[in-house]
């Protein structure tokens, strides 16, 4: 795991090193003032030194929290990431539970009722969901539910609510930066309702994109488990068929579904980028897209590093979880 993280940092550093010293100096700057004094930065961080010496200097700066200065956000990169992160977390806080519960449920019933109407519908929905480009789906949703019915607007929060929050810092305290949770903590339900209204379409998009793969894996692992000997034994003993499916088959069928949760994390990250860009939500994904289109090197590298870290840690958690759930692995 550490090796992979080290590798990711080397990869990102190599991308950085392929720029000229003058251009990559931005990745070391800490303020707007320093950006204007590039030659000083080049001298200070020895950007003409050999590769490995520069790498050590760069990684030290990273560990000190200096990811360079972002021209897109006009603030240090780390500050920008901290500012944009809550919106992304909020989106996934709502979509993840839905994806997991709905995905497992749909996969289970599709597996139990093989080749019936439910099964065919979920299969077709899964392959269409898989083929539908996320950004196009989000655009269509916006066209129907925002333009035609004027129900769910884009962005994170309505303008009048945003003004209210910035005008009354004492009445509305921003604990987390996530509007739904802050609204609940401040007992301001107008803010909660408005934020939820803005979350509906993004969450629907995110769920549709990510859920397909979970339903597919859950279905096929249900099918595999259902044909095993212990199911026949249980049936022969006269155990209630629902008990067999829910208590025995489903539990075993969940194991392959857990193996792909790393993939789900990956899809959620990619989904967040698209969703935030289309719905104009000020999250990490939007920051990343803006940075990429304006060639803001420090932000793109920092977000890639961060996402690499999240992905590796998520995989570690999945491995641990797998051992906790499956005694066969634990005992080995």
């Amino acid at each position: 795991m550490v090796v992979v993280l080290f590798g990711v940092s080397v990869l990102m550093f190599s991308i950085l090193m392929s720029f000229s010293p003058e251009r990559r100096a931005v990745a070391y700057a800490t303020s707007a003032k320093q950006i204007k004094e590039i030659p000083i930065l080049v001298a200070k961080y020895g950007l003409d030194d050999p590769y490995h010496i520069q790498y050590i200097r760069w990684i030290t700066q990273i560990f000190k929290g200096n990811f360079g200065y972002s021209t897109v956000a006009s603030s240090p990169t780390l500050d920008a990431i901290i500012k944009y992160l809550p919106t992304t977390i909020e989106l996934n806080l709502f979509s993840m539970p839905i994806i997991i519960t709905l995905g497992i449920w749909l996969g289970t019933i599709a597996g139990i009722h093989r080749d019936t109407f439910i099964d065919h519908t979920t299969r077709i929905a899964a392959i269409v969901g898989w083929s539908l480009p996320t950004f196009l789906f989000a655009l269509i949703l916006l066209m129907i539910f925002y333009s035609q019915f004027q129900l769910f607007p884009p962005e994170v929060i309505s303008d009048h609510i945003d003004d209210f929050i910035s005008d009354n810092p004492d009445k509305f305290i921003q604990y987390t930066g996530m509007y739904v949770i802050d609204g609940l903590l401040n007992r301001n339900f107008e803010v909660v309702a408005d934020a939820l209204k803005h979350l509906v379409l993004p969450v629907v998009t995110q769920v549709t994109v990510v859920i397909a793969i979970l339903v597919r894996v859950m279905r096929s692992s249900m099918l595999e488990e259902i044909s095993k000997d212990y199911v026949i034994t249980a049936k022969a003993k006269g155990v209630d068929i629902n008990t067999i499916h829910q208590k025995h088959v489903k539990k075993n069928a969940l194991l392959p579904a857990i193996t792909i949760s790393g993939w789900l994390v990956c899809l959620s990250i990619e989904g967040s980028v698209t969703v935030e860009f289309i719905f104009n939500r000020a999250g990490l994904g939007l920051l990343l897209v803006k940075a990429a289109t304006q060639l803001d090197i420090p932000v793109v590298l920092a977000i890639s590093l961060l996402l690499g870290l999240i992905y590796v840690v998520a995989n570690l958690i999945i491995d641990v979880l797998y051992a906790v759930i499956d005694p066969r692995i634990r005992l080995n």
Partner: protein
Amino acid sequence: METKVEHPRLKELKFTLYRIFRNPSAIIGIILLAAFTLVALFAPHIAPPKYKHRPYMMPHKGYSMEPKAPSQQNFFGTTSGQYDIFYGVVWGTRTAFRIGIIVVLTAFVIGASFGIIAGYYGGWIDEIIMRVVDVFFAVPFTILAMAFVVRFGRGLDQIMIAMVLVVWRRYARVMRAGVLSVRNEDYILAAKSMGVSDIKIMLRHIFPNAVYPVMVIAFMDAGSIVITAAFLSFIGLGAPIGYADWGQMLAMARNYIVGPVGEPLKYWYTIFFPGSAMILFVLAWNLFGDAIRDAFDPKLRRK
């Protein structure tokens, strides 16, 4: 009586084709793919280019930002900037095929080569190659591709290079797994003991027997690669303005998803035509890829 004995390879191929053509979704996929191929091949006849020397640039009459509805001159209407949508959809098919095929083939060659070398030699070579693959796997596809695009700059060729640099990782991993499963077969050991060179063993004996899983995911990937390329073009990293590319055409339409008061869906055609083309194209590859998998997977094919 003389019974005709078929060559086993021919028999298997016949069975594979039978499997593919028995599957209704595969037939839909193949018909769609065939239709797109015809459109791509005959693009100059279906939509004659206005600028002969650069046919991929969409012709546009005037510079008005407001899209115009479908009419006699413009079957699918015009998008923002008066670019002809019909022309863009037709020539965009070529762009989509070019991106999908070039990226998949290049990544396939790179990934499969690394996979064979890692699996065949094993030891520290395997260790190094697979750790590099792990590193590339640690960052999600789109994000890593964006990081590379920042290095190479904007443009269609640039995003294709960036995607190749990401996509190869999966082929390397799957190829290696395939190689490991055949590496210790008797026929390989026999070839080795007869002094056949490593390169010949890899190409002649290991490659054909380990390549099917990689081929299947390559077919399945073509669709998702076209989506990612379209997204990169959509956010403005790919094709230049006016280039016949579905992602770019959707980006032009983005400001027109909300129509004027009273007619909220007035500009539906700016999204509908390029969007449908893209969905059908990706669906075609996915259905086809699914069928190929069912037909080639030894666990599923005889069921």
